[in-house]
């Protein structure tokens, strides 16, 4: 796997996508889909009701007879449900294919893996590009503002629909980790184990600041058209690309950037004395920005970053994070990476401290890595060994069959 693949995707797409393809996935996802009708609305934290509600999802492996081997994977900001299969738009392999699959740490021979596209996403779950039943047109900015808790409530609908009472595990990194924490606190008795990775119990001022830069870039693009660009057949691609470029820098570490790119020039021997992408890093970021636009909806980016900004588990529980975890019975394995400055180890330690304060069953590992926040998506052997060991031991404790027995 490439060293740099920040979030799903990576470099050099093998299929050239079009915005038509992307919109096709919004309305008719090439994965499983469950639709909750008008008369079963989702009550959002804002107080608004959302209906109908679609959730697009992928599953891998087989649910066992007593439905005790289900693992929910929660994706990050720009991820989707295609965790371990070829992506329908980019043609690239799944974003967590190193971790999830047959014989992998999250072994699909043993576990039944469910990965939904989040509420507010653009790969088939209801989001700003979906049709507003009141107008018959895409929601745009009429879509209600959502929270991480709302995303989890939508996932609960899906898990109920699948007839699963208790999830063997809930796993996710970054924003996915925030969802894991919401599961552990909102659905205390439905989660046996949880792995929140490279995440935090709140979104910091610095993180909100970066997100605001991204949103302003999108909204400053004339093609954004106050969020109503769908009908005009345009997308605010320049603004969204800039947002992606800025965000992408935060996913890497200074050391990784310096080591991979340094001050090297791209496809030339001397400076051009212009604003061309002289430097390799510029060319790399431009590529990241432009490929992102092909597979992601700008309004989804606005809504999802907003949901992350609002995330504050401490604030939600009276200013004391430990209160969030009171009564938690799940075995929780917190993972952080040494060079992650977006969600640094101290944020993970705050989670661990709060879990200790309620004497919860918590493990915590910090993985040595120079790859920054992105490390959770990459092939980090120590991280993978931790996930494998933690899940295997917990599965054995619960009498879950080995892979060979399960088949």
């Amino acid at each position, binding site marked *: 796997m490439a060293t740099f693949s920040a979030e799903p995707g990576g470099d050099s797409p093998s299929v050239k996508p079009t915005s038509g393809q992307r919109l096709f996935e919004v309305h008719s996802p090439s994965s499983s889909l469950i639709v909750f009708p008008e008369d079963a609305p989702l009550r959002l934290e804002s107080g608004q009701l959302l209906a109908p509600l679609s959730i697009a999802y992928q599953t891998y492996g087989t649910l066992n007879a007593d439905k005790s081997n289900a693992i929910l994977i929660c994706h990050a900001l720009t991820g989707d449900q295609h965790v371990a299969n070829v992506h329908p738009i980019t043609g690239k392999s799944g974003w967590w294919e190193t971790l999830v699959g047959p014989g992998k740490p999250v072994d699909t021979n043993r576990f039944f893996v469910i990965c939904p596209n989040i509420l507010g996403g653009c790969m088939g779950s209801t989001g700003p590009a979906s049709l507003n039943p009141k107008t018959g047109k895409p929601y745009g900015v009429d879509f209600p503002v959502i929270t991480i808790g709302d995303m989890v409530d939508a996932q609960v609908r899906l898990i109920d629909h699948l007839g699963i009472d208790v999830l063997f595990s809930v796993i996710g990194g970054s924003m996915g980790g925030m969802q894991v924490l919401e599961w552990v606190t909102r659905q205390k008795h439905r989660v046996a184990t949880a792995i929140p990775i490279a995440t935090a119990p709140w979104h910091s001022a610095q993180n909100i600041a970066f997100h605001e830069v991204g949103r302003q870039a999108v909204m400053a693009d004339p093609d954004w058209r106050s969020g109503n660009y769908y009908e005009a057949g345009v997308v605010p691609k320049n603004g969204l690309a800039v947002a992606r470029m800025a965000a992408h820098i935060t996913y890497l570490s200074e050391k990784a950037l310096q080591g991979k790119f340094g001050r090297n020039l791209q496809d030339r021997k001397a400076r051009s004395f212009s604003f061309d992408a002289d430097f390799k890093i510029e060319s790399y970021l431009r590529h990241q920005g432009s490929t992102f636009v092909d597979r992601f909806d700008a309004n989804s980016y606005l809504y999802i970053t907003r949901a992350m900004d609002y995330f504050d588990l401490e604030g939600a529980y009276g200013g004391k994070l430990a209160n969030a975890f009171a009564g938690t019975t799940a*075995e929780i*394995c*917190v993972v952080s990476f040494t060079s992650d400055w977006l969600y640094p180890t101290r944020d993970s330690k705050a989670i*661990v*401290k709060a879990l*200790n*304060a*309620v*004497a919860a*069953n*918590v*493990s*915590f*590992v*910090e*993985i*040595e890595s120079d790859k920054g926040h992105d490390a959770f998506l990459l092939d980090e052997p*120590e991280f993978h*060994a*931790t996930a*494998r*060991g*933690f899940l*295997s*031991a*917990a599965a*054995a*404790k619960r009498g879950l069959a080995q892979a060979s027995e399960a088949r």
Partner: protein
Amino acid sequence: MEKAVPFTGQQRADHVLIAEMVKPGSRVLDVGCGDGALLKLLAEQKGVDGRGVELSREKVNLCVQSGLAVIQGDADHDLADYPDQAFDYAILSLTIQATRDPKTVLANLLRIGRHAIVSFPNFGHWRIRTQLLFTGRMPMTPNLPEPWFSTADAHLCTIKDFVDLVALVDAEVEDAVAFNSQGQRLPIKTSISLQNLLGEKAVFKLRGRLA
């Protein structure tokens, strides 16, 4: 933090003695759990619900990979986060000598656990006494193999010193065993002075005022 142990059995001698002091099915916090050997022993032989705290990142990761609930942290800083009486036993095996503030650490153990179990190398052992007496230099033994300038041991003590510390934190000794380099416990009737002279290590089971 962990010392080379001359005991040749499968298990570390102090671990075996600690396990004897722990009731089956209890909740245990092992502070400075190293590679998790004691937690594994306690899980297998006593069916305990065990948790660990360990300073070394590598050891923590190995523990978690083997299915133990362990966090990276240290006795001096992280024990304050645990609630009162959250565990039946808070254990510190061959770790107290490496803490910065043994008194506070011990007080925290007695607060977190209904019982505290502490094992430590006895600096009052005759071999150490004679080395210091005859060489005039800081002793090095199989039990304390590092030279003074590179050892992690910040606060070495003797059995008598430890008994004084127990009184200082207002705890009660429920059980105490000293043992020699072969891991054999010294006869029960042996006086504290003789244990202090002949014991290479000791294991104390304590109870604090909260319990």
